[in-house]
């Protein structure tokens, strides 16, 4: 047996195909790593596009501010132009842009309403204008903390007001909605506190993104907590996802670590199967799809079958070879990424852990990148083995390499679609379909599986049944096969 396996490996490694595939993988890897490094830009942010500004400039000339039907539009366009003018003084990713877009835009809008609106009030407009100038001065002096403290003050006041209102009102309807409003206001207060306490300057970096995520996810959770409607399975799943994202955002804010960074070695590694899964599948399917059929097509199967080994042993040794090659391709592609990514990005990022929210202990879990990767590989292995087995079975039964390679690859690419349909329309019987079951990472950390009713045990049995359905006929047919004239 060992010698049979050794021979099979010799045959694979003496062929050019495997080296060509590995080279293509390497080329893709270098390219994608370089793209991540040099072109990936998470701050490609522009508040108004140039085209829009051009359009507004033309449109405003056609409008007459005194005509009642035009007034509203005129004020809106004027505000856009004023805001844009103000933004032009700063870089596209400067912190000031964010303030202009939020706080100052409101002031400008108010001022323009007094200037051009139905009830003109020049003194009010001047008053607001002074405030705008004051704020503008602070922008110029890079005094972001002023805005942060203002935000905090406003949030505190809002909470206080709402709580006072709650204790004084008797209106039942009002009481019902006020709790949610208070909760929302408290979230705003949290965010404002975080900004001040953690010294987070406005802008568009990962800290602000985390802060923004934290706010949005918290809103979502608060809304769901307050609603009395029964959640569907997928809504519950989204709810859990929000909890995880909120906790991760919190971790980023408190630890000042860019956990979600995609464009470094750690980011690519923790996303290993999305990036390079296809290459692993292509290599293993190519080997599994040719290891038997090629011997039939070239006639060399006769050479093998008149050696003192039973057909069972010969086929088994070929299947074991396929399994070895799965491990080999994963290890090699991983090693290649480590080297390529290490050279392009450096290895420092590997010290940062991967975060997973554990729904069993309701705690955020820090996992070493390599442990995480190991778990990922282990939980993805069933899918790769099953695809390779399908290819192996087709290759043996039909002795036709193209079919044996193309079909599993098509299947692999169609998985997302099948799963999407099954989940979206909640088609229960698709639970028995293997693609929903073969990814065991869905059961990690107490997460909710893709579909209601899936359990690790159920998935394990489904995977084993599919495996046996493919492998048993393969062995039976191979054993009985008449070697026809070639």
């Amino acid at each position, binding site marked *: 047996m060992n*010698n*049979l396996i*050794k*021979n099979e490996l*010799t*045959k694979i490694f*003496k*062929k*050019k195909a495997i080296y060509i595939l590995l080279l293509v993988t390497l080329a893709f890897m270098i390219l994608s790593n370089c793209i991540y490094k040099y072109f990936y830009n998470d701050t490609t942010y522009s508040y108004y596009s140039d085209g829009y500004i051009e359009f507004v400039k033309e449109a405003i000339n056609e409008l007459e501010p005194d005509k009642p039907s035009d007034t509203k539009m005129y004020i809106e366009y004027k505000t856009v132009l004023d805001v844009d003018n103000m933004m032009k003084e700063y870089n596209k990713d400067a912190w000031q842009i964010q303030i202009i877009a939020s706080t100052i835009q409101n002031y400008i809008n108010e001022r323009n309403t007094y200037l051009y609106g139905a009830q003109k009030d020049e003194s009010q407009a001047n008053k607001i204008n002074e405030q705008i100038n004051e704020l503008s001065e602070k922008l110029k002096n890079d005094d972001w903390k002023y805005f942060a403290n203002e935000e905090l003050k406003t949030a505190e006041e809002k909470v206080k007001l709402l709580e006072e209102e709650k204790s004084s009102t008797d209106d039942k309807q009002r009481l019902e909605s006020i709790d949610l409003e208070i909760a929302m206001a408290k979230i705003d207060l949290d965010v404002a506190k975080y900004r001040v306490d953690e010294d987070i300057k406005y802008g568009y970096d990962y800290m602000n993104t985390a802060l923004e995520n934290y706010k949005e996810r918290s809103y979502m959770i608060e809304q769901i907590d307050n609603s009395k409607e029964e959640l569907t399975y997928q809504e519950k799943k989204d709810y859990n996802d929000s909890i995880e994202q909120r906790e991760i955002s919190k971790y980023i804010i408190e630890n000042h670590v860019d956990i979600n960074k995609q464009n470094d070695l750690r980011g690519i590694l923790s996303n290993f199967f999305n990036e390079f899964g296809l290459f692993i599948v292509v290599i293993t399917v190519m080997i599994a799809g040719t290891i038997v059929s090629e011997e039939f097509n*070239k*006639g*060399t*199967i*006769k*050479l093998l*079958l*008149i*050696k*003192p*080994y*039973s057909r069972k042993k010969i086929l088994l040794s070929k299947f074991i070879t396929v399994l070895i090659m799965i491990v080999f391709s994963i290890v090699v592609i991983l090693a290649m990424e480590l080297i390529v990514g290490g050279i392009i990005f450096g290895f420092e990022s590997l010290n940062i852990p991967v975060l997973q929210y554990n729904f069993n202990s309701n705690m955020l879990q820090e996992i070493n990148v390599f442990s995480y990767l190991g778990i990922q590989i282990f939980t993805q292995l069933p899918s790769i083995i099953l695809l390779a087995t399908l290819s192996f079975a087709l290759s043996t039964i039909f002795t036709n390499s193209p079919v044996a390679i193309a079909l599993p690859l098509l299947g692999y690419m169609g998985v997302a679609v099948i799963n999407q349909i099954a989940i979206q329309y909640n088609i229960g019987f698709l639970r028995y379909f293997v693609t929903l079951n073969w990814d065991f990472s869905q059961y990690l950390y107490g997460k909710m599986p893709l579909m209601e009713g899936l359990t690790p045990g159920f998935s394990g049995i489904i995977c084993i049944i599919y495996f046996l359905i493919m492998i048993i006929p393969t062995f039976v047919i191979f054993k*009985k096969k*008449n*070697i026809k*004239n*070639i």
Partner: protein
Amino acid sequence: MKELVLKCESLYKTFGKKQILKNISLELYEGDILGFIGPNGAGKTTTIKLILGLQGITKGKVLINGFDIEKEFEKAIRKVGAIVENPDLYMYLTGYENLKLIANLYKGIDKKRIEEVVKLVRLENRINDKVSKYSLGMRQRLGIAQAILHKPSLLILDEPTNGLDPEGIKEMRELLLDLAKNEKMAILISSHNLAELDNLVNKVCIIKNGEIIETSGISEIKKEEKANYKLFEIKDASRIKEILPGAIIINENKFKIDAVKEEVPEIIELLVNKKIPIYEVKKEEKSLEEAFFEKTGGNVIE
């Protein structure tokens, strides 16, 4: 006493409703070289595949060194070497790598044995080239090398002279005779090239439409004649029919006539009386090829 190496007991093979082989029985002893002859489609390769366990046997039994090929495959096939249809080789490997793969699958084949076999088939100079660069003749020789690497007691060769030049055929004939004599191998050769077998095989088995129609020693099959022709070479055979009405003219100097031994002096006397010079008189012996066509009734697939 020579040992029985291969025994086929009334083999039958059907594919669906089509009967491919009917009642094929063969026996092959050590040191024997059996020529397995038949027209295309007669069932030669199918028989070989049944013997090697490459196809299931519908009815009957194959014993190799006493082991049943279907029931004790691994034991039965251990001492068998074969080329079926074409020499099956891995084109992307070198000749040596091909032999190494085979060597891995048997116990006790060391480097020395591989080199010995390479020398035997005269591939020393090209053994490290890729097989895809070999000529057909070289592939045929490498095929024989991989078949005899483990010193089998039964060697089965399907059309081994395909693609060999006359020199190569001569070499192979010597090699096979040597293997049969010194290694006591039993060899089964199927071939269309009857002239080749003429000086090689000591037994012949003729198969037609899936049935064996003749098995005998090589000397017997050649001697067995329907008519007892005597061949005459004379000065001018063109008008011989006037003297001997039963004569068959072969060319202007030769004719043959159906006559027993005792009639020959009478014919000679007749010719001498007519003053016709006689150069040679001999018994007509058939070549294997002629005997073959006589038995099979030409190369017809039915």
